[in-house]
């Protein structure tokens, strides 16, 4: 199976611990996070988080588990065809 580099964009609460909660979901399913970028919205309670991850066995599970995090508002999976 080719190791696809997944790119996800999440809208999250700008709250302490949100990055750890998200990292847990990837780590527990043996995924490697290649890059993370967090950009807080100006003056608001939200941040945009872009994550690139490899070794993703079940992207649907990952997305659904991310969506269950109370501080995560939305999860969007980008071009999942790009090779690493």
């Amino acid at each position: 199976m080719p190791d696809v580099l997944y790119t996800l964009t999440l809208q999250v609460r700008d709250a302490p611990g949100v990055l750890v909660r998200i990292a847990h979901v990837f780590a527990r399913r043996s995924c490697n996070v290649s890059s993370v970028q967090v950009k807080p919205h100006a003056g608001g309670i939200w941040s945009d988080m872009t994550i690139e991850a490899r070794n993703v066995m079940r992207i649907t599970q990952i997305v659904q588990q991310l969506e269950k995090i109370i501080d995560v508002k939305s999860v969007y999976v980008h071009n999942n065809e790009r090779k690493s």
Partner: protein
Amino acid sequence: MDGATALIRTLEKHNVEYIFGYSGGAVIPIFDALITSKTKIKFILVRHEQGALHMADGYARASGKPGVALVTSGPGAGNAITGMMTAQMDSVPLVVLSGQQVTSMIGLDAFQEADVFNMSMSVVKHNYLVRKVNDLPRTVDEAFHLATTGRPGPVLIDIPKDVSSSAFTAELDQPVDLPSYEHEYDVDESEIAKLVAAWQKAERPLILVGHGVLIAKAEKELTQLAKAMDTPVTTTLLGKGAFPETDSLSLGMLGMHGTAYANKAVVECDFLLNVGSRFDDRIVGKTSEFCKNAFKAHIDIDASEIDKMIKVDVSIRADAQKALAVVQERIKPAKHIAWNKHLDEYRQKYPLQYDVAKHLTMQQVIDKLCQLTEGKAVVSTDVGQHQMWAAQFYKTERPNNWLSSGGAGTMGFGMPAAIGAQFARPNDTVIAIVGDGGFQMTEYELATACIHKLPVKIFIFNNHYLGMVRQWQELFYDNRESGVDLEGNPDFVKLAEAYGAKGVNIASADEMDAKLREVFATNDRPVVVNVEVMKTDNIFPMIPPGAALEDMIIEPPTTKMDKPTGST
């Protein structure tokens, strides 16, 4: 008013009756407020934080209301982790309050400081570290909301000592602030239409009922639908009680140690409706073989459970009660005489049975307990052989009466959970069915039961072994016993008496009836019953881990079995 008093006032607003917990340095302000606030909330001092968590859990499962626990920082919160994991795996609503070092010392390795926020993250639905006293009541409101709505679970609030002891200057009532939390979903009518059409034309339909039916309080809708559609019902371990197990449509529990007829129904059905079960590995066995020719529908409030283990033809993400009510409106009653007759033949051919010849067995005693209490007692269990036999032979008739650690499989759960249940339902009979192994993991909570003179009946099924692991070693590892002999068990009758409980010993079938009368006649204190059972009994039916349901072993195998490769 200080933060601790504001906390107590908020707990009162949520109608908290009991807090189960243990004191310590970081929670002294909260313990002080329990007195100075003159609250009516009763605090139950336990002997170990794991006990407090399981009591809150048992209280929640038996009452349908959230349980509350209060522990101190560091080791106190550490000891609470297993209890939170147990509740999280079984979707039980808990609010756990932990003390923390003062905010200025957090991160400096101060005395009894632990990073409980991070430690607990993977065993809770959500957690908080409160840094401002004025946020405390709103955080508690959010915790109760999160714990009890959607798919329930434990929520931890870590409260630094300076937060609980400083002056509270805001309003107690503040709106909850959870803009990214969704928990209510509309029933998808087009999926319902597909479900109804498939059920309507099914010849061999089957309903699989999980804990979600009890959580959604959908027992009435489920029972009416099963009857109207003449469709047999099998439940998971945690679904016991959602449908009366003595009903002619009940097949009992399915799965690894389920009834042969339930598993055969799963293999042969042409339509399967799963309501509120997560297709756990203990019930599906080999996933590629599970129920493979049937049309499968799944109702679950948690989207991540749909298609996780078993791919289904129809899925409805909704509250079970709401979804079943819509199905009821759309469907026309049906009869399945031939299918039910066929399953009856399986019931006759492969009944749950036990040998009454030589030794006293767990099955015989549990069967008797079920008869004596007419299936209406609240029963909690530990984990292992006794748990599976209890699931088989104690026919649960009513909701919220079966308390068992299913997902986590936490030994030590049974007795404290029974204590919590007895607090929730003081007038009902509460029985703990535990093994000699699990009992010794939380036996110190006998003190808590004795202090409050709770009439819990604790049956220790004593085979002097960790029986389930010994069974696997016998079946799959050439009977090499390793780490399973519980040599050195204390005299449980004397132990009970030392705590102030009544101790009873049952060593043979001849004395069982008289001794049980004595047990059920004692209602002024806990009763601990040591039941000396056959040492090396094995539980069947059994589906070897990772095997298909068709490969169920109904009787003890006569040839050596391969080591299992599937789920532990």
